[in-house]
């Protein structure tokens, strides 16, 4: 036990590397990303354990190839395949997940249908921008494929970043608090005389922003545009976390971090198992607060929920969870695309239960309202 299997591999390469690479292939098939460096580590771990023992192989992989609790389930599934069916055989294809996120044809460039009407000069200028102007106020539900591509360009210019707050980290500054370390350090060069005093002050950084986007069936007309908003935020590199809400909660920050929006959305769709299903808002928000929010992600953050408030779960749960969330967060913003409808009243039980705990209630049905949202996230309305 614990000894190395007969060293048939050349010196240098871990003898177990072949097995490790085979397992790596199964893991990738199951959707877990593992780099070569990790596989080498796995092979080394196998050498130190008993590679003929199921549990040892299991733990060797768990410890070297998994780095997040969310991956454990996938790992377990892949391990079953690897161990039970032998590494030589290819893994069974996973059941295909139907995506409802559109992947616009790349060949369709943002259409510039500049109206060529001859009117007064001033009119012409306005007309030239008119497709954008129209697009800004057009309801997302009425968007064509081309218009989504155009939306992408608009979103790219939108700055999505939390309001600034003071960090605990101090940095050198021309004035502020006295900085004895740098002052004395400077004094070294001037014979121990502190000729110049140095200062430092708290660094200013944006608050964390957490976006929770409802991707259930009732939101289908809007979630494709709103997910692009999420992507624009995540890809801009701001301190931003993105989740999708359906029957369950899925963290999609990592998937959205890819710069290419279409690829990012594809990846995100791959991660969500509950697109266009029902919503259990209360449960999903509870999961968020339990697993992420309370641990710190929501503390002092701007939390944005993008949902129509239709909840198939218990409304009491939603109210309770919104209360918890509002206590943790700096600000809770609710974005409901239905709000723009004439005569809208928050009749959906979930919506009326949640509203008392919401600081800002916005519509989010067109680009202009997303600009409003970006301003609310940045506290631009209250600052100055």
């Amino acid at each position, binding site marked *: *036990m*614990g000894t*190395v299997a007969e060293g048939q591999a050349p*010196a*240098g390469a*871990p003898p177990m590397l072949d097995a490790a690479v085979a397992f790596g292939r199964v893991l990738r098939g199951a959707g877990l990303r593992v*780099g070569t*460096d*990790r596989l080498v*580590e796995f092979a*080394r*771990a196998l*050498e*130190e*354990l*008993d590679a003929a023992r199921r*549990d*040892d192989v299991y*733990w*060797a992989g*768990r*410890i*070297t190839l*998994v*780095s*997040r*609790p969310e991956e*454990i389930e996938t790992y377990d599934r892949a391990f079953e395949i690897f161990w039970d069916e032998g590494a030589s055989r290819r893994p069974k294809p996973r059941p295909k997940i139907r995506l409802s996120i559109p992947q616009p044809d790349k060949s369709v460039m943002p259409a510039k249908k500049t109206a060529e009407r001859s009117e007064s000069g001033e009119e012409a200028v306005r007309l030239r921008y008119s497709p954008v102007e129209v697009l800004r106020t057009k309801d997302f539900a009425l968007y064509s494929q081309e218009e989504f591509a155009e939306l992408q360009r608009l979103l790219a210019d939108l700055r999505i970043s939390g309001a600034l707050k003071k*960090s*605990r*980290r*101090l940095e050198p500054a021309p004035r502020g608090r006295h900085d*004895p*370390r740098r002052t*004395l*350090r400077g*004094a*070294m060069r001037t*014979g*121990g005389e502190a000729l110049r005093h140095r200062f430092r002050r708290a660094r200013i950084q944006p608050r964390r922003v957490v976006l929770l986007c409802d991707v259930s069936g009732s939101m289908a007309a809007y979630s494709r545009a709103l997910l692009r908003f999420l992507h624009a935020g995540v890809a801009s590199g701001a301190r931003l976390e993105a989740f999708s809400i359906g029957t369950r909660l899925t963290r999609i*920050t990592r998937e959205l971090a890819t710069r290419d929006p279409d690829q990012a959305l594809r990846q995100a769709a791959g991660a969500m198992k509950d697109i266009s299903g029902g919503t259990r808002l209360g449960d999903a928000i*509870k999961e968020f607060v339990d*697993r*992420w929010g*309370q*641990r*710190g*992600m929501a503390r002092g953050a701007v939390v944005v929920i993008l949902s129509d408030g239709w909840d198939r779960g218990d409304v009491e749960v939603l109210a309770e969870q919104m209360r*918890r969330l509002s206590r943790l967060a700096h600000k809770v913003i609710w974005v409901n695309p239905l709000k723009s409808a004439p005569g809208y009243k928050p009749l959906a039980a979930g919506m009326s239960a949640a509203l008392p705990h919401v600081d800002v209630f916005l519509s989010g049905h067109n680009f202009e309202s997303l600009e409003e949202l970006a301003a609310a996230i940045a506290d631009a309305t209250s600052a100055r």
Partner: protein
Amino acid sequence: MTEATNGRRGALPPGVSHAGDLASRLREHDYLADEGLATAIFLALKLGRPLFLEGEAGVGKTEVAKVLSRVLDTPLIRLQCYEGIDVYQAVYEWDYARQLLHIRAAEALGTEEDPERLERDLYSREFLVSRPLLQALEHRVPSPPVLLIDEVDRSDDEFEAFLLEILSDFAVTIPELGTIQAERPPVAILTSNRTREVHDALKRRCLYFYIEHPSFEREVEIVRLRVPEAEEALARQVAAAVERLRRMDLYKPPGVAETLDWTQALVALGAKELDETIVRATIGSVLKYREDQQRTKNAGLSALVGGVRGDGG
């Protein structure tokens, strides 16, 4: 043979040749590790890799480092992370006050005619204050120390990037002094409560283990081991009640640490078994939020205890 492959040297305690041995060693020092955790620690020691531990607060992450230092009989060097922590707090700092005094003294004695030598003196090891990370690298006894980097998730990106560097090379470069390289890398344990996702690159440097709340039987064992004064019946009742509390929707579900606190409180009050009165009197040692206490009381303490009896009997 495997040790020679990389020139890495494991830091396993003598007489430990597989994970099972290590588990019993940990147990001798009052720590119960299940197979996965024991294997993770075993591999970390054997392969000389840092071990990254994640899990809810109170599942015993920090405890792993403490017990390891006892098992390995080496000092524990602890770096508690917090927002804004930087190199000066984590690695080293020049003792500016003493440096200034030194300059003044040199002036007074008139020995400062050679400025270069004075400068060399000023930036010598003598004036360097070492913080936990440097202490861990400089440690010079037969076996490397255990370096606990606690709550990495509280630090920020810059510091993470810096940790990555240190954990790759086990060396730091101090501009005025040069590079300080660990003779033997410390046994590094990193913990995170997952208040945020720690960068992948850092995790990739490490072996990873996610510690969960212990199972009922395991928790009873832990209680018996750590609070031997508690009777078996009480231990079972406490473990069952805690398990129940974890299933309730609490702000801060009790961890193992709370289970032990509670048991100790019960034992101190001479309790032989749980009843409503004693639970009411001691609830503060297991639930640390007023809302959680209130919620549990509203749900009915008798139900909690009554259920426990059913389970335990």
